[in-house]
């Protein structure tokens, strides 16, 4: 199990770096496009490329954001409970999250497959968009595995108390 955690942690870390590169890339591309347009040489398909990079940046940040607890939650009530009760509540919500993101991962893969079968290509660049959707599904898979890891940790915490 230790190796599993290490691999997931490693992938999540690499995804974060790749996401940051996409973010820097979309900024640069948009700026170059603006300057290019000024000289009547806009970059062809830049809107599509920026959207793809933004999609990848956000999807790749999913595991990292969950790990650093970057999402907003309403803490006000749970904070009043004992550590053990808090851990039990966290376990329940983690299981619910697992259920949700496992379904989303599965459906995203199905969605990518449907688009692939339909042979849909992006409008300007004729890029096979299903590749991006598969990449999003992969990020979601890693995210789901991180939630499983969370659940394992919370159970461990409950056992020691």
């Amino acid at each position, binding site marked *: 199990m230790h190796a599993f955690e290490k691999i997931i942690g490693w992938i999540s870390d690499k995804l974060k770096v790749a996401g940051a590169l996409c973010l820097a890339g979309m900024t640069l591309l948009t700026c170059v496009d603006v300057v290019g347009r000024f000289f009547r040489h806009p970059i062809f398909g830049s809107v599509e490329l920026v959207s793809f990079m933004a999609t990848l940046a956000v999807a790749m940040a999913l595991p990292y954001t969950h790990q650093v607890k970057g999402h907003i*939650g309403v803490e006000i009530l*749970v904070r009043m409970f004992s550590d053990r009760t808090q851990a039990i509540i966290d376990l329940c919500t983690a299981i619910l999250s697992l259920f949700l993101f496992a379904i989303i991962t599965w459906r995203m893969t199905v969605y990518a497959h449907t688009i692939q079968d339909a042979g849909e290509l992006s409008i300007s660049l004729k890029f096979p968009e299903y590749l991006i959707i598969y990449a999003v599904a992969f990020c979601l898979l890693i995210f789901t595995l991180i939630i499983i890891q969370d659940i394992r940790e919370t159970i461990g915490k409950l056992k020691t108390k």
Partner: protein
Amino acid sequence: MSPTIIGIIGIIVMVIVFLSRMPVAYVMTIVGFLGFSWMISGHAGLALLSRNIYEVFSSYGLTTIPLFILMGQLAFNSGISRRIYDTAYKYLGSTRGGLAMATVSACTAFGAVCGSSPATAATMATVGLPEMKRYNYADELAAGSVASGGGLGMIMPPSVVLIVYGVLTEQSIGKLFVAGIFPAILVTLLFIIAIYIRCYITPEQGPPGETFSWKERIRSLVYLGETLAVFILVMGGLFVGLFTPTEAAAVGVFGVLAVSFIRRQLTWQGFVKSLFETLRTSCMVMLLIAGATVFGKFLAVTRIPFNVASWIGGFDLPPFVIMAIIIFVYFVGGCFMDALAFVMLTIPIFFPVVTSLGYDPIWFGIIIVMVTEMGVITPPVGINVYVVYGVAERVVGGISLESIFKGILPFLVAVIVGLIILIVLPQIILFLPNLMY
């Protein structure tokens, strides 16, 4: 079971699950998905889930969010805040309460390159608190001015809340941005008046600081000039229709980078940190939008938004009474929940009501931001208060939560006065956007 009853059950379940501190975005997605599946079919619910999330992630209109967040993060990590503060300090520092006035002015100026309220509060607390401590300012005034001033970052464009509002209600982000400029200046002035009155009643709250010569003051304007140049480039480009919001944000990122490069104040570590922080915040915001979209689809099929609009219409109350009730709901909601999440959650319900009453959607957007601005400084959830509390511990050895909340009171009154002025004189908001295109 009628669709409306199913909708109400959905909302109740959602509120209960919120209290488990499960991320708001996850809860909205799961309740929206289950509710939609119940109402239409399991298959339709599953299709909605993947398609909606992918559409939100890949929407070109939303690419402006990570870019504006990046612009704010770079400004945060490159010391621009310090220079803005120094300029404001040279002009206002010598009057009674002048340092606090300089702080709120600097918050507005920093808000012009940063779209987040807690980020503005954290930045200005780091710079302003030690200075105010040095001049023996009372903890209340010092902490109150940074926590409240931080909220100005949200009203002054660029503002993440306004982008999200614009996307959800299909309003022009450019118009929303320029609409925020005058209200932000108005609130800044009201804050300055509040500080003046506070120090007039109890002078020991904010003793005067040192006086600078006009030569030094004028020289310091150069520092403000850089930020102003970036702001004018971004907002001016949006205003005259030269850029799309995404392009304006990218140009803004480039502008802040150029300024930090010339000043040699952004380290490589600072740059990388800005990228990672941006990823985290953007992912949080985008997942919230995805959740709100899924939940909004569920609400739409239950017809709750339409029913609420016609139900309220049936009371035959004057529009301003209904508006007052809506504002009150936002105020109370903002006390318990993060501003952005609360806006996203309630927009599908209140927006049809507001437009059916004949209010301008751009005006309503600014009013909502103003109200949620009160939410970020009021107990029990006031995020800026906790941000300032955290920073104060690091930079001035701690300020009690009680002092911060007490210090906020005059500013809260100022925001309420500002809100009343903007309701009575909507032209302050609508004047600039009406000049566009």
